[in-house]
């Protein structure tokens, strides 16, 4: 069903329409939040909070705007706020805790793969997190969420050339940090 129909029906109080809307976009919002390096459990909670925000403010939706742009903005704001609010030491501690758990295991091939994947993700999100906020958002949306420059420009409310510049600088910074890490 069309997004606008679902939104209008939700405004009229149709619970089924809102559920259909949530089912349509839950995966997308969940993945956007995950792409900012947030754990599965927290990403689920945050994505549900995003839907509650939408439920509260659905009347304020400007119908000339793209629904997905609106959703991305809310999800990104929630994710950035969450990451900023979480104290870095706590965040790092949690990740180190995960690694300790893995260290205590006797590795078979599959758990070793899991460990590698976890370690690589940790390095990736650690280095992405060091980027300035705008670079972080543009890079994440482009390289992890696979959005086009035009879509990112609409979401961030900046020009396409600014998005290009942000992603270029983000790649340079990330490259420098990753090389420092592995050399």
């Amino acid at each position, binding site marked *: 069903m069309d997004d606008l129909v679902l939104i209008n029906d939700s405004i009229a109080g149709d619970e089924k329409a809102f559920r259909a809307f949530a089912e349509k976009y839950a995966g997308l919002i969940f993945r956007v939040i995950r792409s900012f390096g947030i754990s599965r459990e927290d990403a689920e909670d945050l994505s549900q909070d995003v*839907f509650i925000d939408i439920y509260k403010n659905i009347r304020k939706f400007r119908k000339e705007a793209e629904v997905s742009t609106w959703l991305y903005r809310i999800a990104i704001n929630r994710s950035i706020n969450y990451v900023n609010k979480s104290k870095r030491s706590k965040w790092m501690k949690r990740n180190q805790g995960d690694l300790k758990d893995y260290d205590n295991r006797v590795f078979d091939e599959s758990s070793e793969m899991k460990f590698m994947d976890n370690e690589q993700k940790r390095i990736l999100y650690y280095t992405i997190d060091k980027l300035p906020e705008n670079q972080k958002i543009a890079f994440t949306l482009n390289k992890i969420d696979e959005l086009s420059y035009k879509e990112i420009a609409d979401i961030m409310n900046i020009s396409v050339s600014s998005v290009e510049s942000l992603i270029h600088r983000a790649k340079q910074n990330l490259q420098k940090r990753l090389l420092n890490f592995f050399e």
Partner: protein
Amino acid sequence: MDCVRFKNSILNYYYGECDPVLTKELQDHLTGCEKCSIIFAQISGVLSSAETIKSEEPEPFYYTRLQAKIGDYKTGHIRSHLFARLAQPLAAACLAALGVFIGIRISGNLADQTLVGNDINQTEVAEVQLANEYFPKADKDDIIETYYLNINE
């Protein structure tokens, strides 16, 4: 191509954003340089770890929990709405009652003070009456006249 130039293009190479000529040069360097190929394997491993997120979905019962949260929000919203609707008139009524109470207390104190004043006046009147009973009811001239008469005698 040297290692420095390769390292400067490593992310663009990983994301396939180099022009074909540069891509060929980078590929040739990778096959010939063990150090760079190790670094490239490590960095591409890190960058590709984000790929798994692209296929992730929320856990089952996601919508059930979402519905429960929306239900909680609605109940909380109704409660806060009811609270706001009831609390304001209640607070106003309490303030009015408090004002009336304070007014009564203040006027009570004033009345007490007036009573004390009345008591003082009544005491004074009683003293004058008592004095009148014991002292002769004569005016000043009579007293002086009587005094001099007594002396002359």
